């Protein structure tokens, strides 16, 4: 699982693969027709590799529908991925300003953090002394 751009690119590549797969399926499993009354379908010997492996009409049709639906689903997936791309509304200048602001805020937060840690240390040593003095008989 990569970042969103990579996901999007993967999805597009998958769409391309689906295109190929669809054509391949149709090419491999379509039925055979005669174009004229004198044509006849050549019967290949059973054991030979068949170029076209015809499927029954209903199976072929159902598979076509499924492939078409898959294509649509993939395309919708791609559109969804596009719509959630990060920072579509920010221009480069916005981003730079944002980064600068965050940098400053980080610095001040870091300073506060150090301050808090120092205060904590003080209060800890304070507490330490008090506890030790209680222990004294």
């Amino acid at each position, binding site marked *: 699982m990569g970042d969103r751009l990579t996901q999007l690119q993967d999805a597009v590549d998958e769409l391309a693969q689906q295109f190929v797969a669809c*054509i391949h399926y149709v090419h491999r499993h379509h039925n055979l027709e005669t174009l004229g009354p004198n044509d006849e379908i050549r019967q290949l010997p059973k054991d030979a590799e068949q170029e076209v492996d015809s499927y029954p009409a209903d199976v072929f049709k159902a598979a076509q529908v499924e492939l078409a639906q898959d294509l649509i689903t993939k395309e919708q997936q791609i559109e969804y991925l596009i719509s959630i*791309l990060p920072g579509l509304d920010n221009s480069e200048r916005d981003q730079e300003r944002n980064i600068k602001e965050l940098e400053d805020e980080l610095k001040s937060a870091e300073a506060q953090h150090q301050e808090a840690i120092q205060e904590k240390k003080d209060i800890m040593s304070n507490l330490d002394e*008090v506890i030790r003095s209680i222990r004294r008989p």
Partner: protein
Amino acid sequence: MADPNENQEMQDMDQITSTWPRPPPFYKDFTADNLARLADLKRERAETSNLPSNSTPKTDSKDANDLLSQRLTGLPPNLRNLQPPLPPDEGAWRIFGDPYRLVQPLPKLEEGGEIRPVVANGGLLADGERDDKHFDRATVLKRIAKSLLLNFLELVGVLGQNAMDAADKVKDIRDLFYNFHHLINEYRPHQARESLIATMQAQLDRLRAETTAIRDSKEKVERMLEGLGSLKIDQEEVAAATTATGANTKAPAAAGRGMGELEGEMWGMLVDPAN
């Protein structure tokens, strides 16, 4: 390391099994002392070289930044490696025989051969390549996605009619795919900045939460100490009351007095740091 045999052994092992090259020998120069010395030297240099700019207190932080990025010459040998080397002048170098460049521009669609770009200029403004007006990438991408489906439908149609004409359509689809990928790749720097922003925001939130947590626990301890103090007062009063009531309760009274002394001591402790 002092043992020469062991050293020899290690070197032998390196020759046989080292997957990665050993760190450069100067990593040993990066000691805390050396780093502090370098910082001192830099500060000295800054003070001697630009006194007038130091006189204005407002630019102090900027000066500090300049100071850190400033390069010193004529350093003693053990400090020389602490400064990162300058980037190569020509912007290109070789590692393991492969050439590398400092700037790696995204190859333009047109350069890759006969690909027809869907969007003129690749969506970037010609000067400075800054999309201030914000080019609506999402819409274009969605359009391309839809075009892909449509073109595929057309391709299947063409294949059904006359398979010889399909080559053009295939080329259309290929161009669309290339364009799609190119637009996404152009968007990558944008995403990189966006992730940087998200990471910084997360870090900021974490830091702030941590600071608040520390402050909270500090206040808790303070309240506890105060509570402890007031508790002692009660005990002192009790002790005073017991001593006053009579001689038959000597033992508790002594204990009470002991507590009273401790009490005073405690208050001293508590008051002192407040000052």
